[in-house]
């Protein structure tokens, strides 16, 4: 990464066909940290992420998305979604260098090979997505994201479709490889949020609230009593129960 990761600030109102989704929202993302957005389905987490990425949301946003250093955001963002979004006709290597190809640049071959090795896909670099497991595909998607080398990483439930063990391995790999970047992770899973987050923001119909029960630093041990306590505390908060 060549430049320091910026903090982000999203403010404003958002409507879908006249229906307000959020009003006068104020979402601050710390530079170089993991921020997790948790909240019920349909509340607008993906929409927030897409607004930051500058992608189409199908609604009207009036407000601003700005980086702390006041430089444009879109060109500094890498995006990963729940489905791996690998091109099914390309092998692992070609998927990893897809960004360069799409920009008409010559891909940095050595770097791509390094990243493929880093996510443990060397024996599979010539395979197409259809012959990889779900976990391998998400690892390829992660390698592709790292290949983009962007200071901001936006992750929309990237591990939701994986089995528990693969998910936990992917969390560790992502934590390690995205170190030092500004990361926004949308997740349904309180355990994942508690494990990975420097900061947790609860998104609800009423607006955003900061979860203040987080202690220690990621990567937190998934089975440590403190982590489990935070996890159940967060779950209680998400369900609107008294603490």
């Amino acid at each position: 990464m060549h430049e320091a990761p910026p903090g982000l600030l999203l403010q404003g109102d958002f409507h879908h066909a006249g229906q307000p989704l959020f009003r006068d929202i104020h979402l601050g993302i710390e530079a170089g940290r993991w921020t997790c957005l948790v909240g019920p389905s349909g509340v607008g987490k993906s929409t927030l992420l897409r607004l930051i990425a500058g992608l189409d949301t199908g609604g009207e946003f009036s407000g601003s998305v700005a980086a702390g250093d006041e430089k444009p955001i879109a060109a500094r963002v890498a995006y990963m979604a729940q489905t791996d979004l690998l091109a099914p006709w390309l092998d692992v290597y070609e998927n990893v260098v897809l960004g360069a190809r799409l920009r008409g640049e010559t891909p940095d071959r050595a770097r791509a090979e390094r990243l493929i090795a880093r996510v443990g896909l060397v024996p599979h670099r010539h395979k197409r997505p259809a012959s990889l497991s779900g976990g391998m595909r998400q690892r390829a998607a992660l390698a592709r994201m790292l290949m983009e080398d962007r200071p901001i990483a936006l992750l929309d439930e990237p591990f939701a479709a994986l089995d528990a063990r693969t998910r936990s391995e992917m969390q560790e790999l992502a934590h390690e490889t995205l170190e030092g970047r500004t990361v926004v992770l949308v997740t349904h899973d309180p355990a994942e949020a508690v494990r990975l987050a420097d900061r947790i923001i609860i998104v609800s119909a009423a607006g955003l609230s900061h979860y203040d029960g987080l202690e220690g630093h990621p990567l937190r041990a998934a089975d440590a009593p403190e982590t489990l306590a935070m996890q159940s505390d967060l779950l209680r908060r998400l369900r609107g129960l008294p603490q």
Partner: protein
Amino acid sequence: MKGRFIDGLLSACAALALWQAVVWLTGVPSFILPGPADVLTALINNRALIAENAGTTIIEVLIGLVLGAAIGGATALHLMISPMARRLLLPLMVFSQAIPIFALAPILTLWLGYGIASKIAVTVLMIFFPVVSTFYDGLRRTDPGLLDLARTMGATPTSTLLRLRLPAALPAFGSGLRLAAVYAPIGAVVGEWVGASKGLGYLMLLANGRAKVDLMFAALFVLAAFTVLLHAVTSVAARRMASWSKETDESGSA
């Protein structure tokens, strides 16, 4: 693949047996309905004549197919990048489908003459619509998630079209080509019926006029066999073109 071939062979044998049975049971004279054996005899006796005319038709079909696929493919890509083309061309294309090809063939013959050019033109017109509509559909249906990803990667519109939409649409293009392989011989024969001095369509018309029904059937059989072969070859090519797609495997003979 092999199973399908055997199935095809079996159903062909069953059809032949049924045909022969109808001829025996009804006792129709062979100048009305010749049996399979009569047709085979006519095929062997007239092999040079049939081969010569088949050669002409095959050339028309192949040139028409290649031209139609190229023009159709380019049109679909153009529709994809130009909103203007979509507004002007799409209604026109649907309208053109309302005109029967039989009505256009005489005009094309008038303009392009009795040679193979007019037959190629009919063939191209015949397959243009299925090629364009299937391919354009495929181009439009690219996974929106993949397109979002391309946007965040800073992809240029041209490379998004050529590196994402185009390969993603190859299975659809393949189905269009498979349809085209079946329609193309019809186009060529229609062109020949309107006015020609060569070709299987011309030979069939000639044989019919001279009450040589067995020769007509023989020509028809050669035409059908060629169509089946062309379809099979096109299917294999389409599957090669998009070998990554499960879709092409399943609908391999569609």
